């Protein structure tokens, strides 16, 4: 399934009209020990670029922006008890939410894996 990235360090994996979102491994390494993840509510609608989740580490709280608009269909409930999953597995088990995409065309403006790798190399 195709996976895209944002310059704000989110990833989005697309499966037809549905998608799953998380933060990148680079992002989790910069944040340090993650202590809490504040997720959107199931059923919430979001537009691309909206600040919809917050990831806390001990000394920082970082906003997570929606890589694409849509309606939230599920959130990763495991993070409630184990926010450290985002540290251990940011791009797999530490996913954040799933959504029905409002407009798949939005994905065209995101980075592919190679472009994202180049992007973080330049930081």
């Amino acid at each position, binding site marked *: 399934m195709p996976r895209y990235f944002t310059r704000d360090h989110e990833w989005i994996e697309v499966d037809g009209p549905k998608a799953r979102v998380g933060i990148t491994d680079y992002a989790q390494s910069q944040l340090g020990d993650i202590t809490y993840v504040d997720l959107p509510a199931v059923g919430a609608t979001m537009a691309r670029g909206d600040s919809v989740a917050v990831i806390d580490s001990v000394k*920082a*709280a970082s906003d997570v922006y929606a890589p694409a608009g849509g309606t939230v269909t599920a959130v990763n409930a495991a993070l409630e008890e184990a926010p450290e999953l985002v540290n251990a597995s940011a791009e797999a088990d530490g996913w954040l939410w799933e959504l029905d995409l409002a407009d798949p065309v939005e994905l065209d403006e995101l980075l592919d894996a190679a472009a994202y790798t180049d992007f973080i190399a330049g930081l």
Partner: protein
Amino acid sequence: MLGTIGAASVDALFTDVPTDALQSGPIPGLPFHASERAVERHMAALSARALTADQVPFFLGAGAYRHHVPASVDHLIQRGEFLTAYTPYQPEIAQGTLQVLFEFQTQVARLFGCEVANASLYDGSTACWEGIAMAGRITRRRRAILSGGLNPHYAQTCATMARFTGDDLVVLAPRAEAESDDADVIAAIDATVSCVVVQYPDLFGRIPDLAAIAEAAHAAGALLIAVVTEPVALGLLESPGALGADIVVGEGQSIGVGLQFGGPYLGLFATREKFVRQMPGRLCGETVDAEGRRGFVLTLSTREQHIRREKATSNICTNSGLCALAFSIHMTLLGGVGLGRMAQASHARAVTTARRLSAIPGVEVINRVWFNEFAVRLPRPAAEVVDALAERGVLGGVPLSRLCPDRADLGDVLLVATSECTLEDDIAALASALEEVLA
């Protein structure tokens, strides 16, 4: 030192200040330094211009209560390691303050019948607003109902904030009746309401039925905020959390802190564990050190202004640390049993006082029940009566007009409060002075 710095004089260190804004000598027109003895004498002379609670029969309450504070409390809070410490940002060398805060949080949570409490806020009135703001964050609604039994100065503090944040506050008018305005509060609840704010005991000393209000609020998806301005009452009354309150805020002044002409006081704040990340103010939490020993740290600070900046839950930096310490020490000396005794004595004096005052022609006790404070209706404006009592060396209570100057219809209402410090002689002095004034 100037040699090391490479400056010719201390004044030369201020060259970045524009010369037209830099004073070339001491600011003109102000006195120069004075000796410790001279300053002490100056302040003592000012202090003498007062009628103090310790000197005369004293019956004031309305949000600030006089109780006896054991001598060890003031001794302990003056230990330099407490008095001259900073916020415990370096936990390895601040375990004293941190453990006190952890104990304080536990004491407040238990007192209020809640799961968690914070490390204190400025005072009861600001804590009340913080509770309303928090209920808004939780329910995502912006409309709050404030009971007419809420201290009007609390209501005004909240209304001032709401005016700027855009929250909609429905403030019910205080009514001098035998029963609290529970029915009006319940009637005002609908699905747009974030919270109802109910003082317990209320402004007039009445005791609202929190359980009934909580049920009505919860049915509409709203929260109940209970406001406790006299925590000693909880020595006799059930804790608000146990009655269904979701957020309990209060003024902790009456335990350990003293009157101090209104400040510094102590904002108490407790709630349910599930709301903890929406709670304002500092929090102390338990953890371990590198050797596995138990220790305490400030925690969940990502809610706070220094990290979240414009997204913080509140702009509060300080808590009321030393007042929290005083409260905690006094509460430790009391224990639950001592709190009950203090409450019982305070209540008993109020019952006696009410009985004596209601025997005076023209004086009517308004309440059906009360804890240590009740309202009486006088045949004359209460403010005048209070002034006349003061001339006779009796501090007789708080005229409601002091809190509601715009309510001419409440001008004859006087709030009378007692505590374990109130003596039989004090009650007799108040009764006879009042009789004389009203004659």
